[in-house]
């Protein structure tokens, strides 16, 4: 019997005392596609980063073709024939396909001159061999994302990789492009390569994979052949634990319609989106990354071009063409990435809290330091933000406290509708609960919450109603009575 391409047993890894991976177990056969499944925080990324030599393991065994190995850097892993195609590709845009494939090991023609002819020929042979329809001399910036991935695959093979890890390779692809990728995967299989395929899209996994392994909460749950498992069973394994006391839900939706959106379109691919939310209601928008969820909020907040659509707040039609206008009408937008668009990291807690409410914290153009300080203190108390002083830089706070500063900034504007984009991403369990409490209280007090989330547990735990997005459109709506993790994953994939 041939030894397995890759075999992992009992892999563990902790970060400052918290176990990210407590039992990583995995086996990859030659000429197969193996799906690695698990929710957020299941330990997949930690597992892969250890296999790729990016992080050292605490304990456990990794065997490559039956021999025990330790990789201290991605370079060593690559040398041993393991290659990864990242979710976010970072090619050198202004260089050609051939130059990218041979980056850092260009064939030379004497006097340190690069032998472009030999490089282009070799790259073209490689691409043709894989039946990829790509010109080796084309510039990377002129290629589609799908083609960029194919180039990455060719590059991996040029290193004689036997194991190719693909991390959410279809997250930015359309259907036709995904088919292109699947064809390439079949070619790789035929060549005896092993593919570790990471994806949240279950239909894809059933289409392309031969075997599966499920991780949950940092530990191996199960593995087997795809043919022997049902979709429902796989979802059960991924979602796992029952949801107890993780959520705080005290609100009950009222009858009065607070915000209604009809036929919303935008320049950033929101297509004919309609929904409404009542006073006291928490509405969840569920969908995969790239399904057009955040774009709805960007359109509502006037951050992108208006391509038509009607917005009605408290029975009156309103125009939302700039963030300032949206804020005046009582909308608040907690963005997905607080470091990129939620906070000014170099500014103080006070400055961040006051940022969206400046017109009301002074007389005319002159600010009142006293009112700014009072407002900041009020929000620090309301949300229990842990900071020694409101004059300290917000960058020194923990993720959960930073998120509470963002919430404080928006609550200061006394909003009617809270738009929350992944409000609990990257915050610990305790802070999560507090954020749920804030949402619940806000809705109970007569506000409306619209929350984007890709965590099924969170949607099931908090939402009164959920709409599911696919490709910029709403594909279905689920009421609280019918909400379940299985159903959400099923509808979105």
């Amino acid at each position: 019997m041939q030894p397995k391409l890759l075999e992992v047993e009992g892999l563990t890894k902790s970060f400052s005392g918290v176990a990210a991976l407590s039992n990583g177990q995995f086996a990859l056969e030659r000429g197969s596609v193996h799906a690695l499944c698990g929710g957020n925080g299941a330990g997949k990324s930690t597992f892969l980063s250890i296999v790729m030599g990016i992080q050292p393991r605490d304990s456990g065994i990794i065997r490559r073709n039956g021999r025990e190995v330790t990789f201290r850097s991605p370079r060593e892993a690559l040398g041993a024939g393991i290659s990864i195609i990242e979710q976010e590709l970072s090619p050198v845009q202004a260089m050609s396909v051939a130059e990218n494939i041979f980056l850092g090991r260009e064939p030379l023609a004497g006097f340190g001159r690069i032998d472009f002819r030999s490089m282009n020929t070799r790259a073209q042979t490689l691409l043709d061999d894989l039946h990829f329809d790509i010109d080796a001399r084309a510039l990377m910036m002129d290629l589609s994302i799908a083609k960029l991935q194919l180039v990455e695959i060719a590059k991996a093979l040029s290193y004689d990789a036997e194991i190719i890890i693909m991390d959410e390779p279809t997250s930015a692809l359309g259907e036709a492009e995904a088919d292109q990728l699947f064809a390439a995967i079949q070619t790789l299989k035929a060549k005896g390569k092993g593919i570790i395929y990471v994806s949240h899209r279950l239909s894809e996994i059933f289409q392309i994979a031969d075997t599966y392994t499920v991780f949950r909460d940092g530990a191996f749950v199960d593995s087997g052949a795809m043919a022997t498992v049902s979709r429902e069973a796989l979802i059960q394994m991924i979602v796992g634990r029952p949801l107890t006391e993780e959520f705080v839900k005290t609100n009950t939706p009222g009858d009065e319609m607070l915000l209604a959106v009809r036929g919303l379109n935008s320049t950033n691919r929101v297509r004919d989106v309609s929904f409404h939310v009542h006073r006291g209601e928490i509405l969840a928008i569920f969908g995969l990354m790239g399904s057009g969820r955040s774009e709805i909020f960007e359109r509502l907040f006037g951050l992108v071009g208006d391509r038509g659509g009607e917005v009605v707040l408290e029975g009156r039609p309103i125009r939302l063409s700039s963030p300032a206008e949206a804020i005046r009408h009582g909308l608040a937008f907690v963005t997905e990435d607080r470091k990129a668009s939620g906070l000014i990291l170099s500014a103080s807690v006070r400055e961040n809290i006051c940022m969206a409410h400046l017109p009301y914290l002074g007389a005319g153009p002159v600010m009142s330091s006293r009112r700014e300080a009072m407002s900041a203190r009020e929000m620090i108390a309301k949300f229990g933000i842990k900071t020694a002083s409101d004059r300290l830089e917000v960058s020194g706070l923990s993720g959960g406290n930073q998120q509470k500063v963002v919430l404080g900034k928006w609550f200061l504007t006394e909003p009617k509708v809270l738009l929350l984009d992944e409000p609990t991403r990257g915050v610990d369990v305790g802070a999560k609960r507090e954020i749920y409490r804030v949402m619940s209280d806000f809705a109970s007090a007569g506000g409306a919450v619209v929350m984007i989330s890709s965590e099924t547990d969170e949607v099931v735990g908090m939402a009164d109603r959920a709409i599911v997005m696919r490709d910029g459109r709403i594909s279905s709506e689920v009421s609280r009575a019918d909400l379940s993790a299985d159903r959400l994953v099923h509808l979105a994939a």
Partner: protein
Amino acid sequence: MEVKQTVASGSEGDGGGLKRRFAVYGQKYGILVALVLICLFLSVANEYFLTARNITNVLRQTSINGILAIGMTFVILTRGIDLSVGSVVALAGIVAASLATTSSTAAAAGGPYPAVVAIAVGLLVGMACGAVSGVVVSRFAVPAFVATLGMLSAARGLTLLYGGGRPVPELTPEFRVIGTGEVAGIPVLVLIFAAVFVIAWWVLSATRFGRHVYAAGGNPHAATVSGINVRRIRFLVYVISGGLAGLAGMMLAARTGSALPQAGIAYELDAIAAVVIGGTSLAGGVGRVTGTLIGALLISVVNNGLDLMGVESYYQQVIKGVLIVAAVMLDQARHRRE
């Protein structure tokens, strides 16, 4: 006031050991400490340094660069840069001078006009230059470096076209007051500088516009989401920088008695140096106009000290270069520690 509060609350928060407190002061006042030490050294080393006449002289020399540097502070706080200020100095200077000269060959038709008119027009010329740069940067998303590099060349060219390449001499005594006048023994140059400083300090620390400038530079995306019109702020800071460059240009012409088409060459570099030495981050969002004041004073004091000690001016340039880089290196080291 603001500074003291921050320090106090900072040391409250961590228990405030003496060593720690020194470190905090060192961070906040590093450049000020350097300035004081240099002044102490010079007062001992040279008996002329601490005379009223020399101090007035230093302040007078600081005024024009200081005003340019204050405008530059606004721009750099928003992650921008204004390379055109030296050329705008010349253009505004020569246009204003042509309205305030008694020379029959250089005067604009109907001149000389009252100094107030000349000064108003000079300010408008500067603001107009800034407005053009501001539109190019904020509306057309051209990098500030490129946009203002273009203005640097264009404004210099316009200066030469306007005056036919000749200086404008024989300015009216009324106009010359802003360059040579004195009030209670204090040069008007210095008074104008002081007024600009106080207003800029107030605008940046006490007004909504000031908050917007810091936010637009600290994180333009977050500022936009929070309802701040970042484009408008980006536009306005160039108008401010241009207007202040116009003011500085007129002060320079009034001081020397004639407006020269080659005035202000490379002034942008000293202005940027003062801002950077003063601790304002080129990455935007962090900095104070008080730091810029200290930076500008430091440059003048070092120049003056080297003059007094008879150091050749060529060496002075080398020393200034070292000073700029050393100040930023210290700043970087501090950030890494944090």
